[in-house]
């Protein structure tokens, strides 16, 4: 706090770093590498997330090749997988490893760190009017723990016995016993080490976000004037702080079982021709601990995307977000409910059926705040003056996938129905649409929208349009048909479906899905090109390119340490005074005082 205040009072001109008496001379290392500036850390998170995302996406293409054309050799598989793909046909262990690491990378490294890490870091200080995060140092540590964790996860791909391959949920005993699957050896150890560091990173980041939002809001920025992005990041951070430690304890007990002979999760096991000493543990305990994080994690992924969408949709519809208070209320309701629904992942574990009823009840309740959000987004578009930036397109796509995927959640959350679709492709379709697609669309929306804020340049519009349509179409093309596979009873995580003649007629659907997956992957090439090209060569952006109300657009385009030259901006109104009657322009930045006789909207 005091650092920030002194920085504020000492500030004299707009030149970089000039106000800092407590920072060292700016050089390459502390500007680009060990930076404590939230804007640089945001970029670091984003770039690392993009690299991890590319790895995760390529993996999905590889296993989609296997699923559509099993037994057919692909030279590219042999090249990339080496001994795991003799004659270009991947073997079943590496298939499971690819699915596992794809899930881990996408859920944690891309959609948690890459999404929340990037935009919480970039936007929290800029949108609440703070010089920086409460602790720049912790923020830097958060990134570097994430970086090391990513590196270890990538290294785990190269160990001799193969990477972790027990599914991203790493249920023991499969994940605990190298005898059960080779990936549960060194690969799994590295997975656990990587995830531990990841949790540290996530906690350091989340604590910082919470403290910053609570303490460093500028004058006039009451909680009810916060843009919905900040509400989303704030609640996300609280979810993270409450749930990630539970994952850490789950992982630690797994480490004990693996290396120290304890029996938290293991009991009565006969494997590799011998009985193990473990007795008295319960594998289901792990699932309880895992999903106590795992379900809030879904919202840790989704809420930031919804927050970004709220902002992007309001700005580009040139209308206030419809029902601001209901939006905040539903974020809080979803966050609360997310802690009491984890058992819906475990209806068929042999859990007491009465408990199943309770979890069905709480799970289906989530549909109510979710429906409120969906309707509010739709109504925000109503009578708007919509400007279709690529960010806006991705936001509308998010609302579409949020609805589609949310609806199938009503099937899966119902314990009686879950019996027959549990762990089938119906689940794969559901969570990829509601969580994967929605979150990644939110992330794209954020990147397109705040790219000028991050790099001071614009991304190319036309390439953005191409990227959007190819991505949107192929996304539905991949995941929509999967519902039918699930209804046909096809289990997920099958290396090939040819062992069961009853699934032979699904081969065509799998080929269709894989073709869309390949198209979608190629479409990301347009994005990568646009992203990196625009970073260096894009057209320079105006200070407020989207005519937006929020504070980040009142700061100079060139990044400066401390964000604003001179005084911090003072806030006089909420963030959504778009097209307010009686105003000259169709937007009124939060820093503009109320005019004479003007009523505060909110």
């Amino acid at each position, binding site marked *: 706090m005091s650092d920030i205040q002194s920085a504020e009072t000492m500030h004299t001109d707009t030149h970089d770093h000039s106000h800092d008496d407590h920072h060292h001379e700016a050089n390459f290392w502390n500007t680009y590498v060990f930076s404590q500036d939230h804007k640089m850390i945001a970029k670091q998170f984003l770039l690392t997330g993009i690299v991890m995302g590319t790895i995760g996406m390529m993996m999905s293409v590889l296993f989609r090749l296997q699923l559509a054309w099993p037994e057919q050799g692909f030279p590219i598989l042999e090249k990339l997988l080496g001994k795991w793909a003799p004659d270009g046909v991947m073997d079943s262990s590496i298939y499971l490893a690819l699915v596992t690491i794809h899930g881990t990378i996408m859920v944690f490294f891309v959609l948690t760190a890459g999404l929340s890490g990037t935009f919480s870091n970039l936007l929290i200080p800029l949108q609440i009017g703070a010089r920086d995060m409460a602790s720049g140092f912790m923020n830097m540590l958060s990134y570097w723990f994430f970086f090391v964790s990513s590196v270890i996860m990538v290294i785990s791909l190269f160990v001799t016995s193969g990477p972790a391959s027990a599914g991203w949920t790493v249920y023991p005993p499969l994940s605990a016993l190298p005898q059960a699957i080779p990936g549960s050896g060194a690969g799994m150890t590295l997975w656990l080490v990587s995830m531990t560091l990841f949790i540290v990173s996530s906690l350091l980041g989340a604590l910082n976000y919470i403290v910053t939002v609570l303490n460093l809001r500028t004058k006039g920025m009451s909680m009810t004037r916060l843009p919905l992005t900040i509400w989303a990041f704030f609640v996300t951070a609280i979810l993270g702080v409450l749930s990630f430690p539970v994952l850490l304890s789950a992982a630690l007990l797994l480490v004990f079982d693996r290396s120290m002979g304890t029996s938290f999760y293991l009991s009565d096991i006969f494997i590799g021709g011998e009985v193990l000493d473990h007795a008295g543990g319960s594998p289901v305990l792990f699932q309880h601990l895992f999903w106590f994080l795992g379900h809030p994690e879904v919202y840790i992924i989704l809420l930031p995307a919804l927050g970004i969408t709220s902002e992007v949709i309001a700005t580009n519809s040139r209308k206030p977000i419809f029902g601001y208070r209901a939006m905040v209320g539903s974020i809080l309701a979803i966050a609360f409910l997310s802690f009491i629904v984890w058992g819906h992942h475990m209806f068929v574990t042999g859990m007491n059926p009465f408990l199943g009823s309770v979890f069905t009840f709480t799970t289906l309740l989530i549909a109510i705040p979710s429906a409120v959000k969906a309707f509010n987004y739709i109504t925000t578009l109503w009578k708007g003056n919509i400007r279709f930036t690529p960010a806006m397109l991705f936001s509308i796509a998010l609302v579409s996938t949020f609805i589609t995927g949310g609806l199938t959640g009503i099937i899966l959350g119902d314990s009686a129905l879950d019996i027959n679709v549990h762990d089938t492709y119906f689940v794969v379709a559901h969570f990829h649409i509601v969580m994967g697609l929605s979150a990644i669309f939110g992330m794209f929306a954020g990147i397109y929208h705040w790219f000028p804020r991050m790099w001071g340049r614009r991304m190319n519009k036309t390439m953005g349009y191409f990227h959007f349509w190819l991505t949107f179409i192929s996304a539905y093309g991949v995941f929509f048909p999967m519902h039918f596979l699930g209804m046909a009873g096809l289990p997920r*995580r099958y290396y090939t479906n040819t062992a069961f003649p009853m699934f032979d007629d699904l081969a065509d659907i799998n080929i269709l899905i894989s073709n869309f997956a390949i198209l979608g992957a190629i479409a990301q090439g347009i994005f990568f090109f646009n992203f990196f090209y625009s970073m260096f060569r894009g057209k320079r952006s105006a200070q407020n390119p989207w005519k937006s109300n929020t504070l980040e657009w009142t700061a100079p385009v060139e990044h400066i340490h401390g964000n604003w030259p001179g005084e911090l901006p003072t806030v006089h109104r909420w963030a959504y005074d778009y097209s307010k009657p009686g105003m000259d322009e169709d937007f009124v930045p939060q820093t503009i005082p109320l005019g004479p006789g003007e009523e505060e909207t909110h």
Partner: protein
Amino acid sequence: MSALLIIIVLVLAGVAIGQAVRIFEISNALKGKDENEITDDDNKRQGWYMLIFMFGMFITFIWMSASYWEVMLPKSASVHGKEVDNLMAISMIVITAMFVVTQPLLFYFAFKYKGKKANRATFVSHNDKLELIWTFIPAIVLAGLILYGLSTWNSTMFRPEDEEPMIVEIYAKQFGWNARYSGADNQLGYANVRNIAGVNVLGVDDTDGASLDDIVTTELHLPVGKPVLFRFRAQDVIHSAFMPHFRVQMNCVPGAVTQFAVTPDVTTVEMRKEQDVIAKTATINAIRKAKGEELYEFDYVLLCNKICGSAHYNMQMKIVVESQEEFDNWMSSQKTFAETL
């Protein structure tokens, strides 16, 4: 070497596209156009695309529903499964209705209110009445679904006390299944993996009197119309016993015994005569014939549905539902545990 060439080609292609974009941008700049500003034309075009996408989506949705109807599971072959299928049908109708209402609204509004520079949006910040309506309507619909769902769940999970089911153990291990029938006493003998030795692959305790008449098999035969209580065990890792045709699934957890009760009510032979099944089998056989594979005949199966290792994808057991007579015949041809020792 070829990899290097590919990389060089990719890099050069990237540079070429970059230069093309550059030229495009410079020529626009010369013409005084800012190619990144969103023009009214862009809005018009994208708005139309949104509408077209919506129609495309619905046409595809209908097409898929029609042409993939046949691949879905046939009617349930168990008593509780019929209730589950009803619940599924009603839930599907509800969510399809919501889908059909909300998606068009979203895309239509996007199309209808595509912006023009000269226009201005209508300032509406909230509407308590509307918001109450769309909080309460989903709440009421969900209340109905929850009540119906829970009653189905309860009748599936809690069976009437007076029913005397046949007790059968399903035993899972990497990568196969066994069934153990409880024999004449309808009581399974105690078993633990610590007793596994030689032919006693399920670790049945031979000192427990109840185990002597137990019958271990590699196929699961069930008499039609008779309640069965499955008790599930696993030897090594978690497996999941999935019998999709009966709407049955339960995890098999090492160190614990889980259970699921079911009453099969359609025999294998009867199921083979179902219209759906005949059509599906014909489609499958056309595919298999073209590939020169053995022809397929419909059978119920038990498959593993929890990732359990490298051959997870091929862990199956055939299930036969037959008349009591046929079942008894088959049973009498099997050896009891005492006989195998």
